């Protein structure tokens, strides 16, 4: 009896529930339409407008009307050293911030992944930087923290012979990166902590019985287990941090010189200082394309993380 049942083919799974007419399906989706239209209006139309202007010569500080000038804006984008250096600085800032934030995040997550008195308080305090508005954080760092004369950092370093360092002038790029790290370490900690807590405890016990010490267990088992979480954190962090603007604008204003001018700030300068709408539009389009490339990798990684979760 059971054998016969086992041999019977499994029932076919209908992708579309039977008996739901075309009309009914439309009725179900109709309430989503306003959101879709809104999304198109606020994202796709501005993009199309940007695309249009990127082929125009259009300056706000002249009375000349906008006129089509082919791909010359794009030529400028790819030939001017300012764009390349801004691009390179974006890459350096993002990579340094994300990688260091991730290393710190893993370390903090490992420390948090054990029971101790006051863990809840410590966890909340550690997460706080992520909850602060980037602009507010930038202002706090630029003023009370890094001020050459009254800054907390100089005060704390004074006993070690460090006096009146103008961090934002002498170590501008480093200072901005530090603030980015400060703000993004909690995010990495949370993601890695979720990964650590999803590790089955009996695997760790098996490792103990198998004679692995704490360090070997971490290297051989925990780190491979965390890999998809670390990848996810790095990619999400990169997507956000490549667009960092608040800290640059408020702490260093892109300077000294162009020492902290990244892509978003360069774009901002093109519009607000050079009034070059066409050039800025072309830079924006190139930036979007580069971002899409990164985002595509990120989405693939998402898919991988979910596959991984399913398989385990």
């Amino acid at each position, binding site marked *: 009896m059971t054998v016969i049942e086992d041999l019977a083919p499994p029932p076919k799974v209908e992708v579309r529930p039977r008996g739901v007419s075309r009309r009914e399906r439309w009725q179900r989706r109709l309430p989503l339409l306003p959101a879709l239209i809104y999304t198109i209006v606020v994202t796709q139309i501005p993009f199309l407008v940007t695309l249009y202007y990127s082929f125009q010569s259009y300056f706000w500080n002249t009375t000349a009307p906008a006129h089509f000038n082919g791909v010359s804006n794009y030529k400028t984008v790819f030939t001017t050293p300012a764009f390349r250096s801004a691009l390179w600085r974006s890459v350096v800032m993002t990579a340094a911030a994300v990688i260091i934030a991730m290393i710190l995040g893993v370390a903090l997550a490992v420390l948090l992944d054990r029971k101790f008195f006051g863990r809840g308080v410590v966890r909340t305090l550690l997460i706080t930087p992520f909850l602060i508005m980037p602009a507010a954080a930038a202002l706090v760092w630029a003023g009370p923290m890094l001020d050459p004369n009254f800054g907390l950092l100089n005060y704390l370093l004074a006993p070690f012979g460090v006096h009146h360092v103008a961090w934002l002038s002498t170590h501008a790029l480093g200072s901005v990166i530090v603030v980015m790290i400060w703000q993004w370490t909690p995010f990495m900690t949370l993601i890695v902590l979720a990964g650590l807590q999803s590790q089955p405890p009996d695997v760790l016990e098996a490792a103990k019985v198998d*004679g*692995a*010490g704490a360090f070997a267990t971490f290297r051989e088992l925990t780190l491979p287990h965390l890999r998809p979480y670390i990848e996810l954190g790095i990619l999400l962090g990169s997507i956000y941090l490549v667009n960092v603007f608040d800290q640059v604008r408020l702490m260093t204003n892109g300077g000294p010189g162009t020492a902290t001018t990244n892509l978003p700030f360069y774009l901002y300068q093109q519009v607000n200082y050079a009034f070059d709408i066409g050039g800025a539009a072309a830079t924006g389009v190139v930036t979007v394309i580069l971002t899409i490339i990164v985002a595509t990798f990120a989405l693939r990684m998402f898919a991988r993380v979910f596959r991984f979760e399913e398989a385990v």
Partner: protein
Amino acid sequence: MAQVRYVSASRVYGKNAPPAVDALDLEIRDGEFMVLVGPSGSGKTTALRMLAGLEPLDAGRVEIGERDVTFVPPKDRDIAMVFQNYALYPQKTVAQNMGFALKMQGVPKDERDRRVREAARLLDLDDQMLDRKPRQLSGGQRQRVAMGRAIVREPRVFLMDEPLSNLDAKLRVQTRSQIAELQRRLGITTVYVTHDQVEAMTMGHRVAVLARGKLQQCATPRELYDNPVNQFVAGFIGSPAMNLQTVPLTDGGARLAGTVLPLPAAVRTAASQAGLGELVAGIRPEHLHLANGSGELAGEVLLVEDLGADALLHVRLAGDADPVVARTEGRTPPAPGQQVTFHVQPDDIFAFHPVTGARLAG
């Protein structure tokens, strides 16, 4: 190769909770297959984890091969453990899983490969399987890899925590005999935890029965079956379970189902010494012999479970006693509703103290 000793080992989880393991004294001989069995919450797994070093002791000590290991971390105890859910390392291949302990010991790669292959052969794991990840394996294969990981070590003691509970019934019976056979061949001291008394009886050289954190009895399977020291062991060992009925005492024996069952003199003496008016009588299902109308116990058949070789009769005895189960020959069982009588040998009746559950001399 080593003997294992628990000396008054205790583990208490909560401040006011009763101990999970209460002053356990147990000696496991070198090369012995010892099964810890008991219902859930009996402390059998905790006892095993104490031996593994995964659970600290609150009192007493644990020894492996004459050495006190109470405060020795798991990695220095030279033990191997098979976990209930196998706890394979998901990112490592089967071969890496099996060779992990050796890698941690710093065994060179060639030697590691050789020993992994040897263990794989012993467990019928073919070579291509060695390169797979655990998630690509079936439950039975995972179980064998977990066994393999333990064997490769050549440890002094094997610890197994319900390793068969995730397998289907047929595979479980098959693997049961394989593990017992493997243990006999390797001769490594083994402590095996299970809640399944059939596993305990078929695999163990000796079986330790635990209940509520206390050791009830530790003996060979045969001894446990023939001579349970108390009502708990009597009821736990044996399938179907022993029929246990509280019965009033009379001059010559115990009153059950309207008749007087004769009890051995020793039991009667013990009962009167304890000043008991009643006791718990236990009769195993196979000791209720069908006796075509001439038996002393009469009753009505409620249900017949035909197992093929034999049949189980659920019978309501005359009077208001609980139904009892009798094992009878399978070909011609009585039909439900039929009146039957049973004959019982006085020597086959176990008697227990109604309050403490202790066996009354017999």
